[in-house]
């Protein structure tokens, strides 16, 4: 059996990560060093959806022998991206977005070439609510390697490979740089116990069995929209907001097709060429964002499209709180 469990000093671990070979694109979550609670900076979203993302380049030229070259796909990188220290919520966002991006080769090229070293949450913030959406601070499901704090020892971390990819990485790449430690695996297993996710599917079940139009026509949307600025902060901060727009940019005879983040909060998102906008008013856009996460996506993919990281709650300048929206929806669903 491969040796895949380690106990290591925090500072020593960061040193070891920095010693990894050039085949790795290493991205370390800042809270690994600080030990700060919460999801922190959204490095997973910018990894999943880099922007602007060049889908292909093109050039305008008269038909000649070499016009096979007119359209060229970008060469996708062969490095392994190491996402080090990401929280369970963010690790889960990769899985949820994968449901919608099932056929997107660009997305999967990145994800398959990545190693997720997750970092379980010892404490949570007041804005965290992963437990309400079918996950939890010690949800290990979407990680290759699990990392956790050691009770009573701030400087120590436990690492344990749980997927084939994670075990190979630990034993062959990072492992030689670490000091092996007997008992770490048992310590992790004991600490995690028999925690299974999703523990609570009550919220999801209620949403799934509720009447879509009853939720859509609920009176609370009208008040909710009052304060909304219709800015894109919530969607751009959200790890499960994956909507994009596409542009062709040209310079002289050359051009590129780019994909970049779009937001359902913007009127332009649904503007038709005819001039009509099916979501022309603020209330339609606010409602759509929540209905998509909490009803349309669950109906289609069987999971709530929210990981409970609370970034939208913390960063919304007018304090629109998705937890309250969820409460309101559940109340309508149960009545």
């Amino acid at each position, binding site marked *: 059996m491969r040796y895949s469990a380690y106990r290591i000093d925090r500072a020593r671990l960061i040193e070891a990560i920095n010693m990894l070979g050039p085949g790795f694109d290493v991205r370390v979550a800042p809270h690994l060093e600080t030990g700060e609670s919460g999801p922190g900076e959204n490095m997973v979203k910018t990894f999943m959806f880099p922007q602007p993302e060049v889908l292909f380049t093109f050039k305008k030229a008269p038909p000649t022998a070499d016009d096979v070259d007119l359209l060229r796909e970008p060469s996708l990188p062969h490095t392994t991206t190491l996402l080090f220290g990401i929280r369970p919520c963010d690790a889960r966002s990769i899985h949820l977005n994968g449901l919608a991006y099932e056929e997107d080769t660009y997305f999967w090229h990145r994800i398959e070439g990545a190693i997720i070293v997750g970092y379980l949450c010892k404490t949570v913030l007041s804005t965290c609510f992963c437990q309400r959406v079918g996950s939890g601070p010690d949800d290990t499901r979407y990680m290759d390697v699990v990392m956790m704090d050691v009770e009573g020892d701030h400087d120590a971390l436990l690492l344990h490979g749980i997927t084939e990819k994670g075990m190979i990485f630990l034993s062959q790449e990072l492992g030689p740089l670490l000091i092996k430690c007997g008992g770490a695996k048992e310590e992790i297993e004991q600490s995690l116990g028999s925690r299974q996710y999703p523990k609570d599917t009550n919220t999801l079940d209620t949403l799934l069995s509720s009447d879509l139009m009853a939720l859509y026509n609920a009176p609370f949307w009208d*008040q909710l929209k*009052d304060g909304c600025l219709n800015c894109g902060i919530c969607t751009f901060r959200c790890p499960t907001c994956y909507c994009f727009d596409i542009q062709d940019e040209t310079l002289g005879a050359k051009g590129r097709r780019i994909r970049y983040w779009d937001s359902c909060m913007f009127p332009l998102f649904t503007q038709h060429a005819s001039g009509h906008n099916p979501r022309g008013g603020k209330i339609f856009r606010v409602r759509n964002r929540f209905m998509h996460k909490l009803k349309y996506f669950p109906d289609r993919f069987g999971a709530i499209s929210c990981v409970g990281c609370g970034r939208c709650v913390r960063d919304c300048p007018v*304090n629109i*709180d998705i937890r*309250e929206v969820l409460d309101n929806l559940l109340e309508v669903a149960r009545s």
Partner: protein
Amino acid sequence: MLEVTGQHRECQEQLRKRARDLLASGEIAAFIGYGNGSLPWVPRPIVVRSPEEADRLVWNSFLTLNLANYLPGVLKELEPPRRRGEQVDPSTLPRVGIVATGCWSRNIVIQVQENQVDRSRVHIIGISSRGMISRHSFKQALGGKEALKIVENDHEIEVTLSHGETMVLSRWEYVRPNCKTCIHPGPVVSDETIGPPPGRRLVDERFREIEEVEAKDSQGRWEWFEEAFKDCIRCYACRNACPLCYCPTCFVDDSRPQWVGKSIETPDALTFHILRAYHCAGRCTDCGACESVCPVGIPMRLLTKKLIKEAQMLFDWEPGMSLEEAPLLGSFSPDDPDIAILKGGEKGT
């Protein structure tokens, strides 16, 4: 949870009472104010539509959005549907109440000047601002910890953090720079006022932030601009929080022609910001809403403040000070300085 004592508490009580009375008497159909939210440091802009709801209104030092931003929308919402071109006597339309500090009231004046708001349909309750807290510096003061409860008195802000820790901040220290140097903290137009008159501000230092950037050479200014705006994510919160931005289609949303690229790359992001700022020339009241809502802490207010300085120096102009005045860029006077007109032999060659 956010609690207030002292002057702000008194304002809050009077505000609730007056809003309740106005709604109960039918003088207004809705009142625009702030209520408490789920996070103590982010009060929530609310529209109160019944006298019973008036007790939701709050008044404190964390009200960093400019409520004038919501006024045209709420007024419009209350209008009955009508055919295109159909004229309606505004005196028959429902009225809206709003609470306004100095800059918010100046923005209402601008909305009236620019025909976005009918003054006769608005009831303004004026409160002199004591300066609002910068969300960014408040967060920094907490050093990564979470504020679970805030109790505010006249000069101190007591914050309860997780694990029962507490921290006491001196209020004035965290007041936004635009508030500290505000030229008019009291409302310029109102139907009634509550609370004490405004205190003194550091008006002499009003353009100090601008002078620091001006002192750099052109290369230095460019570097400052690129560095300060590099984190922009194009969420447009600055634009959407601004009461001056009411165009049905913003220039960034136009696709024929497309004036500016959509990416977050430097040329696109900088173009957006410089154009946004210039659309506010002669109109910006330095309310600071744009900077306060920015999720990445971009100091875009300095661009508009530079334009305030220019308008002040060239035209002796302060936006939104009187309902009788025409907008600066909407009027011409033979005495206007000719600096923008190129003259042969002087600047034009």
